[in-house]
């Protein structure tokens, strides 16, 4: 059982969220604050209406510039479907780091789909299959938010609920639930399950019809993580390349993928390729406004490379970057990872008490949220911080990444 009560900011309505978050909004860049306030205002309208209705056309037009960079969340559900439009607004709030508002939107939507009172949905003219699909989509969103917030048991409940609702059909919700459960297995550190789920989904004939390139990218990427964690570094790189070739250049996921490949390169002992990869990813993440988790992963990687190289000035610079990110509202997992690396930097600069404090905070986060892989990592860090990895012979996949990373 890993769930604790929501943080004090946790509001249960859009207006309450607005009041609680107003001070933060006032300190944000004006355009982001405007977007979030607009989303909250329209959510308050949704909450007042007993039936499901689309956000106003004027609201969507005003939010369109903010919505357009978001990746398409549902492929089969029509973009103009009123439920899809609310799900988009929820994704927008999540993208701007406001999961509580995102959750409020999803909850208001689910209520109007008859989550608590099935009779309520019958007046909306939806059939049971459509209603189940939309409700399942709401559950997958809740699952994702719970996973990112580190409430893994809660996330499992939401994904299970979504699967139960969509067991018979392969549409957006079923796929989102399957991908969500795979992501959850990554978060729990259950890598054999990750590999098995990814392989099964990629080979599943029913799933194939709804698997878009972006989904395949996610599956290859997760399988690459599982392979890397299990020491199959070349398999990891090959899967990463499968993902990379599907992704192309114009994607917000590219920086994340490059980080993943750079991590594999570092595990392989190719510090030069890893350093260039992390550097590229960091640069691209900032340029494209990639999520904080990507920025953290890149900064953690840069710091690890600096530690391997052992240059004090570079370690200090990487540590400063980590400090900057640690001041941001990071999700628990990213925070724990950043703290672990920060502790290693403190150890390098011979500040054992600060290292111990950072490790303590990371351990507390890992235990509270049951991040088993991080717990093992922390234990390993405690027992032996000087572990080295023997470099294998350079595989062509690694050579290809070295060339890519060096290009920028």
């Amino acid at each position, binding site marked *: *059982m890993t*769930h604790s*009560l*929501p943080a004090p900011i*946790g509001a*249960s*309505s*859009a*207006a309450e969220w*607005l*009041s609680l*978050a*107003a*001070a933060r*909004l*006032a300190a944000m860049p*004006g355009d982001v*604050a*405007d977007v979030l*306030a*607009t989303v*909250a*205002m*329209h959510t*308050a*309208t949704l909450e*007042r*209406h007993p039936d499901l209705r689309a956000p*106003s056309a*004027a609201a969507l037009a005003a939010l369109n510039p903010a919505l357009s960079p978001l990746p398409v969340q549902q492929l089969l559900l029509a973009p103009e479907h009123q439920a899809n439009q609310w799900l988009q607004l929820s994704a927008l709030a999540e993208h701007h780091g406001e999961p*509580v508002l995102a*959750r409020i939107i999803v*909850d208001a939507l*689910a*209520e109007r789909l008859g*989550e*608590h*009172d099935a009779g309520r949905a019958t007046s909306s003219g939806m059939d049971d299959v459509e209603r189940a699909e939309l409700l399942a989509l709401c559950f997958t969103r*809740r699952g994702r938010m*719970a996973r990112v917030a580190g*409430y893994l*048991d*809660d996330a499992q*409940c*939401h994904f299970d*609920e979504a699967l139960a609702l969509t067991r018979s059909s392969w549409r957006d919700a079923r796929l989102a639930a399957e991908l969500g459960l795979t992501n959850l297995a990554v978060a729990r550190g259950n890598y054999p399950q990750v590999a098995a789920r990814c392989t099964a989904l990629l080979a599943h004939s029913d799933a194939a019809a709804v698997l878009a390139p972006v989904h395949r990218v996610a599956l290859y990427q997760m399988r690459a993580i599982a392979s890397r964690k299990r020491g199959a570094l070349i398999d990891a790189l090959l899967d990463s390349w499968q993902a990379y070739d599907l992704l192309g250049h114009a994607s917000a996921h590219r920086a994340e993928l490059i980080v993943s490949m750079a991590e594999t390169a570092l595990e392989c002992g190719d510090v030069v390729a890893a350093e260039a990869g992390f550097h590229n990813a960091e640069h691209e993440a900032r340029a494209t406004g990639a999520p904080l988790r990507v920025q953290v992963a890149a900064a953690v990687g840069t710091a690890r490379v600096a530690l391997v190289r052992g240059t004090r000035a570079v370690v200090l610079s990487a540590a400063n970057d980590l400090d900057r990110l640690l001041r941001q509202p990071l999700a628990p997992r990213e925070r724990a990872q950043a703290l672990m690396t920060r502790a290693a930097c403190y150890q390098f600069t011979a500040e054992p008490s600060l290292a111990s404090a950072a490790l303590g905070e990371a351990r507390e986060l890992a235990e509270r949220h049951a991040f088993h892989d991080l717990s093992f990592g922390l234990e390993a860090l405690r027992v032996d911080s000087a572990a080295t990895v023997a470099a294998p012979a350079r595989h062509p996949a690694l050579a290809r990444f070295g060339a890519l990373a060096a290009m920028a």
Partner: protein
Amino acid sequence: MASPGTPRRQPLPATLLVWALPDSVVALLREAVGRDAQLVVVRNGGTATDYMRRAGSLCLVVPVLRDRFDPFWTEYTVVRERFPNVPVVAVATPGVSSMQAVVRLSQLGISDLIDGNEGLRPDEVRAALAKVYNDTTMQRIWAALESTCEESGARCPDDLATMLRRALRYAHEPLPASKLAALMQMHERTLRKYCESRGLPSPQIIAGWARLLVAALYLDDPGRSITSISELLAYPTPGALRKQILRYTTHSPRQLRTQGAMTVVLQELKQSLQMPGTPETADTATRPRLVLLRSEDVA
């Protein structure tokens, strides 16, 4: 009992203080509340303050003014500092409002925000005001529960307090465990396990107590029948409300009325939840009753 499909006429705050809103919005507010609330138009902070000192159950309705140098802002800030607990409904109107102004207004606290950019509708305005009424009712019930606990040296655990407060805000309508879980931003199964692990009653029981507290508040109002209360709280029948009262308190509605419904329910709740502290014998006769504020009290 209300027939299916008939919207329930939820109670509204007794007085609406309407400040700096255009005449068209004031007219719409009048239409929305009808005879169910008194509508007072105020022109400045001084008049608003006078009313707020005197009136009991009221709600302030203000515009979202884009012009940050408008004198309204200075006066409104002073009024908010003096009366931070008075509920505020903000109305955004075309050509006058901006999102920065929404954020500025929210920093001083708002209960609801109405988007009038595409035309206001009386039912929407009424829904916002009913929500405000629910929120203030919740605050008063909560204050009474805290005071009951304090008197006996008990303390409501923080996690239970959070659940009860959220449940109270939505206690005017059926409140299944799944809804309470959504209000806690958890899955129902997680919330159930959470309650078990902390020795708390199940979410369904907590939601039931929240509805009963609101029912008790109405029961203390001699003008309301059990039928009207069951309609107001969307119970399927008056019998369903009676049964719930009996099951939770072992008293009939008539007995509750005689002894002070809110006082008895608060005591029963405290005992059933086994809040830490020394329980005392309920001396209901000496306790002040929580009196429901009606529109007529001020009108």
